């Protein structure tokens, strides 16, 4: 592997969670999301020689991803989508701004998920392991979709608090 490929791979790997989260926040269909992410990788790889290494790589690559996401949203234009170009740009900025300590805290997620009990744990698994929407979960658990949505919001807030208050094992 030549040096630029190795360099690209290293940086892409580090930025991947952010890029994937960015793409995932705009593209909900799982297989479309994978396709767009793959297109991002190809686009970033082929234009890597234009990347100015004095800038953060994640910010650059999210900019590349933005174009792919826009392209995707255009193709899907029959479906109303939430964000217009200005909002998309605002989100590109926001994703580029995510501080390393936020990513760092995510390493506590396994511990915090383990501490979810009973129904909370079940809801979390239905939503994320089985990729079910609140309506489907509601039908399964005999709840209302609204209660499920509220509970999911609470669970994510609980996880966020847990990650913030749990010291990192390395620290």
């Amino acid at each position, binding site marked *: *592997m030549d040096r630029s*490929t*190795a360099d690209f*791979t290293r940086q*892409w*790997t580090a930025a*991947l*969670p*952010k890029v*994937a*989260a*960015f793409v*995932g*926040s705009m593209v*909900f269909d*799982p*297989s*479309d999301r*994978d*396709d767009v*992410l*793959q297109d991002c*990788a*190809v686009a970033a*790889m082929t234009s890597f020689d234009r990347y100015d290494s004095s800038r953060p790589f994640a910010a650059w690559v999210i900019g590349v991803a933005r174009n792919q996401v826009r392209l995707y949203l255009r*193709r899907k234009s*029959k*479906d*109303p989508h*939430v964000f*217009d170009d*200005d*909002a998309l740009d*605002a*989100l590109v*900025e*926001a994703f580029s*701004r*995510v501080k390393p300590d*936020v*990513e760092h805290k*995510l390493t506590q*997620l396994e511990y915090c*998920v383990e501490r979810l009990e009973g129904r909370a744990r*079940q809801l979390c*698994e*239905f*939503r*994320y*392991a089985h*990729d*079910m*929407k*609140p309506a*489907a979960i509601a039908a*399964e658990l005999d709840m209302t979709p609204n209660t499920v*949505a509220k509970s999911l*919001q609470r669970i*994510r807030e609980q996880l*966020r608090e847990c990650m913030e208050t749990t010291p990192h094992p390395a620290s």
Partner: protein
Amino acid sequence: MKDHSDDLIHRYLDETLPPDEAAELNKLVKNNPSVADRLAEAALLHHTLGSGFRSGSLPLRSGHPNTHTDHPERKPLLSIFTPALPWAFAAAAAIVAILTIKNLPPDSVPATVDGRASAPEKLNTGFAVLTRVVDPLWTGQNSPAQGDVLGEGLLELDQGLVQIEFFSGVSLVVEGQAALEIISPDEMRLVRGKLRAHVPPPAIGFQIHTPRGTVLDLGTEFALDFTGENGELHVIDGEVEWHEETAPEILLTQGAALRISEGKTANISADPGRFTSSGQLAAKVARHQNQRLSSWQTHSLATRNHPHLLAYFPMEETDSWSRDLSVYPNHLASGAIVAAKSVPGRWPDKHALDFSPNGSRVRVNIPGDHQAITFSTWAKIDSLDRQYNALFLTDNYNKGEPHWQLTEKGELFLSFGLGKGKSHHVFLSPVIWDHSDSEQWLHLVSTYEVATRTCVHYLNGKEISRNQAIPEKGIEAINIGSAQIGNWGLPTREEPEFAVRNLNGRLDEFTIYATALSPSEVQSLYQAGKP
């Protein structure tokens, strides 16, 4: 305000936001950076939860819900792209993924135009084909067979000689003991061992990484021999470049060679004789095939005298125009070949029958009532595109009459008619064939015993399933009578239509025994007949 925007963000991520509130969120994101920030953070958590559970980094506690719908099956290439939890994501996987993607032809990137995914096309993965082998002994995880497509992953050849042809046109002869890794159609890594590479003009630029540096081929032929960090590079024909991390590249031309030892590079002269060429390999392969063929011939003579032999078609016909297929024991009438073509079998000098032409079959007649049966054949299958793909079927399907075939899914299928109005009983094996096996000769065996109502299926000498029918599904005896190899059904004047079941592939050697061979007997049949 914060609570309300958080509520919008969460419902957006759960895909439950109605259009009017979506417009509100859009406005908030545009005008309020802190809302965009919170959305980004929430999305990061949302994504990490999803990929963590899907990759198994976050363990599941509850069972599957009854009504859950899995999203469409993930393509393997893409699944390594969906990151696991950030800390668990192996950089190696990304490297492989990037290199794979980099070399994908543009039209293989899945397109979803207008949101309509195109119909799934059969996919195979890999960059090269294992075209010739002589007594290979593979260690490690991958042990490919001749004809297999080779993808990423370490190949460790402990003994023997193999030829690998890359899709780019590069052809390699590798000598055991060697370890190598294919990266793409034009890039590979030699971990250790000896190889000789032929690079034709369309494949110029082929690279082989070694523990010390990289060889870039500028056309034609070179050889490598590496043990650890020490090794040699010989240019047999044409030109190559040798790149080391810290040194300027070296251009080597025909007859030149480098010895890399203890970090130092010295010029020596090339010695092509040390490396097996593809011509020499071809000669070895031919010798090896002749040995296998003559050892099979000896075994075939013994099969003719097997005490329980019911019918044996060795398929040794030398006259490809003859429509008679000889059979042992001699008192049986020879098989009648219809439409099937005489083609090379397991070895170039051995015949087989290709049943792919329309209407192909061999008509046979095997009298008698039997208490047990074994069907055995060698098959090379191009595709299983019929609902049922015939191996051997009786013309009718009366009580005790067997049908031996392959299903569309690739399962071995042995069934017996149970009499008027009682349908039949089917014994299925696990799936034994898929498209990647189309270059392989497979040894297929199925046995059945009336007394125990037990059917055993074998693939390449190994038992793959054993099933017993309930007493109500038993039969008193097995009868064959008029039957055919490779097809089914004899249309009549009244009913000229017939099911298309002819096997899209070749059969080489077909044997029926009036006994259920034991697992060790099946294993020795396989050993004696394997190509």
